[in-house]
Every structure is written in structure tokens, then in C-alpha cells.
């Protein structure tokens, strides 16, 4: 198609204007997007710092209180004894008693038939870990499973036909006990994994039982030796 000169220049001009507008449009759209992300990244770091500040403040207060005791000239041995007692309690090295909950998990008595997945009939180590997590989240003060006190170093690891906990072999049924506010503990258990276990109970016959205990007794854990980690010496 042959165009006259005037027509050609008209079309060319229009194309240039359109192209220009497109680019401006894309740019404004893009800058609007990046504004949002920049702001969104600032929020988590703020919350993070604020939370940490609060934690350090609490800890500073605790140390201050301890220093005050020293300044008041309390007997050194009494104070050291108190501290040791406190640290043992925190670390889970003392048997404790109190109100709590008991959760029983057990493999199904029924075997898988046909298309059913055999693993749905068993209690897996992940369920135990999920329940621990929920219990701590609900403010548990002490937790044990099959008489093994859960401490900072406790592993819940699948060893095939058994589950390794604190280096010991544990077999089903798994009885988890936790001391704490029973209402908080019970409501903390209402999470996805717990409901899923309820479904497995109905479909495959595993056991998932929750009982509220007026008094649960949780044994002391074992203190381990540390070969690699050393306290960071302050100010030296």
C-alpha cells in the first residue's frame, strides 16, 4: 500500500506518541509497585527490633535484681544455691508436679487393606514434635513423653520401627504429659496437625486422646556434658 507523505508522517507521529505513553505508563506502574515492597520490608525489622528490645529489658531487670541481692550482702552460699536451683528448674533438671494435660498417641490395631496407605496407620515422630511445639506455644512449663523429660537438647527422631528420644528407643503408645494452664494447653492443641490426627483416628483407627490431669508428675532430665560450646567471656 502506498501512502502519501502527509499520511505517513501522521501515522509515524501517532506511533511515537503511543510508544512514549506506553513507556511512561509502565514506569509509573512499576514505581508504584516498588513503593509498596520497600515499606513492607521495613515493618518486620521494626517488630523484630522492638521484640528484642523488650526481651533484653526483661533480662536486664533480672540481672539487676540479682546484683541487688549481692549488694545487699546476702550470704554467698545461699545466693549461689538459689541460682543453681533456679537454673536447674529452668533447664528441666528437677522433677515437677502440677496441673496439666496428657496426650496418648498409638498406632492403629487395624492393618491397611487394598489401596490404603500403611503409613496412615502409624504414629510418626513428626506428630510428636508438632504436639510439643503446640504445647510450648500454649505456655507449657514442663513436657515429657514416655517418661523422658523434654529439654533443649531433646531429639525426636525416627529410627524406623521406633522413635529415638533423648537417645532412648521409644515404642508406641506415646504418652505425652505437659504441665501448665490446662485451658491454654487444650486450646493450643487446636491446630491443623491435631485435627488431621483426629481424621486418622476416624478413618484408620489410630489413637489420639487428650485428658486433663489435676496433677501430672514430670521427671527430671539429664544434664549433658558440653565439649564444643564455651561460655562467651564477658568483657575479657
Amino acid at each position, binding site marked *: 500500500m502506498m501512502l502519501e507523505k502527509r499520511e505517513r508522517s501522521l501515522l509515524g507521529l501517532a506511533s511515537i506518541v503511543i510508544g512514549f505513553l506506553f513507556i511512561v505508563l509502565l514506569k509509573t506502574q512499576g514505581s508504584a509497585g516498588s513503593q509498596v515492597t520497600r515499606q513492607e520490608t521495613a515493618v518486620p525489622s521494626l517488630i523484630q527490633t522492638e521484640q528484642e528490645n523488650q526481651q533484653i529489658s526483661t533480662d536486664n531487670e533480672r540481672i539487676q535484681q540479682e546484683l541487688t541481692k549481692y549488694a545487699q550482702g546476702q550470704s554467698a552460699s545461699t*545466693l549461689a544455691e538459689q541460682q543453681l536451683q533456679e537454673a536447674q528448674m529452668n533447664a528441666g533438671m*528437677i522433677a515437677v508436679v502440677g496441673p496439666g494435660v496428657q496426650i496418648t498417641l498409638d498406632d492403629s490395631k487395624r492393618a491397611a487393606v487394598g489401596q490404603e496407605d500403611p503409613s496412615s496407620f502409624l504414629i510418626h515422630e513428626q506428630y510428636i514434635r508438632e504436639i510439643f511445639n503446640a504445647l510450648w506455644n500454649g505456655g507449657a512449663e514442663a513436657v515429657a513423653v514416655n517418661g523422658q523429660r523434654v529439654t533443649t537438647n531433646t531429639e525426636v527422631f525416627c529410627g524406623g520401627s521406633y522413635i529415638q528420644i533423648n537417645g532412648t528407643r521409644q515404642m508406641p503408645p506415646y504418652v505425652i504429659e505437659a*504441665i501448665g494452664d490446662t485451658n491454654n494447653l487444650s486450646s493450643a492443641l487446636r491446630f491443623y496437625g491435631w485435627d488431621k490426627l483426629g481424621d486418622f483416628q476416624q478413618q484408620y483407627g489410630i489413637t489420639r486422646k487428650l485428658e486433663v490431669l489435676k496433677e501430672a508428675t514430670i521427671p527430671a532430665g539429664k544434664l549433658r556434658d558440653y565439649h564444643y560450646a564455651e561460655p562467651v567471656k564477658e568483657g575479657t
Partner: protein
Amino acid sequence: MHHWKRSLALPVTMVAIALGFLISLQAQTQKNVSAAEQISAERMSQMKLVLSNSQDQNTKLQEEHRVLLEQLDAARKKVGTDPQLLDRLKQLQILEGTQEVTGPGIQISIDDRNKNVLFPLGTDDIARMINTLKFAGAEAISINGQRIVVTTAIVLSGSSTILVNQVPINRAEGIPYELDAIGDQDTLLDYYSKLEAPGLKKYGMTVSIVRKTLIIPSYKGAYTFKQAKPVSS
């Protein structure tokens, strides 16, 4: 008067329509964007102010914390506490996590921002990795600066914020996740690289593990016992 070719009428009309549409769209977005930009800039500057205040306070508190611990150490020494008892206390404090520790270990960096990653690293993944490190005999563990202790819960808040010890650990800058573990480097490296790294890599994440002398911070939260009472023996 100039005579227009018929064949040109259609393209020119189309161009005119497109042009009109674009101009109106452009005017609209420009208006929206400049308004949004203004609000956003105001918010940003406020946010930055609050954040820098908060960070200043953090530095101050950290310093205060360090000085207080120093004083405490000195006070304990002054009253002549039995060194054996102090050793046991240190050991217990490593276990409860209130003691900052240093030692050989491995540092694991995980990046899940890759486009191929369908599901970013979740709370279950973090819990499983920590469990594996415990199984490998780790003596102290932290993730993004939060010490893992017995009461540590790892939970999701909202759609993507991960809380560890009730503190959000998501990072705005750098590698999203950094997992530190002190212990036997060979065992830690062996277990982690065999049991955990392949799965994450399969999902498109970038995982790097280095041997390092680490400093793992103390747990800053508090243990409270309201219901649990020591069993009197």
C-alpha cells in the same frame, strides 16, 4: 480539500481510539501514583524514624546487658562462690540457653527467594532441621539470632511471618535464613547435608553450609513457673 484514502480510515480510527484510551488511563494512574507516592514517602520517613529509634535503643540495651553481665560475674567472684558450683551453673545455663556461647560448628544459609521455589521455607521445615541438628549432637542452635531452647515454639503469624521465641525472624535484607549450630563439625555437616540439604535443594532453594567458629546468642526470654512445682524429695 485533500482526499483521504479509504484504506487508511480503519487504521487511523484504531490508532485514535487507542491513543484516547491510553491518555485517559495515563492521567488516571498518574494521579493515583502521585497521591500514593506522597503518602508512601511520608509513611516511609516516619517508619525510618521509628526504626532508627528502636535500633538505637537496641544498641543501648545490648551494651547495658553486657555491662550488667560483667558486673554480675565480678560480684560472683567477689563473694568467692565455689568454682565447682560456678562450673555447674555455667553448664546449666548453656542448657537453659541464658548463656551466650562460642565454639566450632556449622553455619547454614538457606535462600528460598528463587523463582523455582514453589513453597518457601515453612515452620515445619525449620522444626525438622533443628531436630536433625539436635540428633547430630548440636550443643547450641540459633536461627536468625534466636537461640533455640526447650520452650522454643516455631509458629506462623499471619500468612508469612515466622515467630521463634515469639520474635519474628523474617529478614528484610541478606540471606533469608541462617541456622547456626555448635558441636562436632563433621557429624553436624554429615547429618545435615545428607538428611536436610537434598530435600531443600530439590525444591529449588539455595543451601550453603560452612564450617565456622560461631557465637550463638543467649535466650532473652524468661522461664516462668506458675503451675509446676518442684517435687519435694
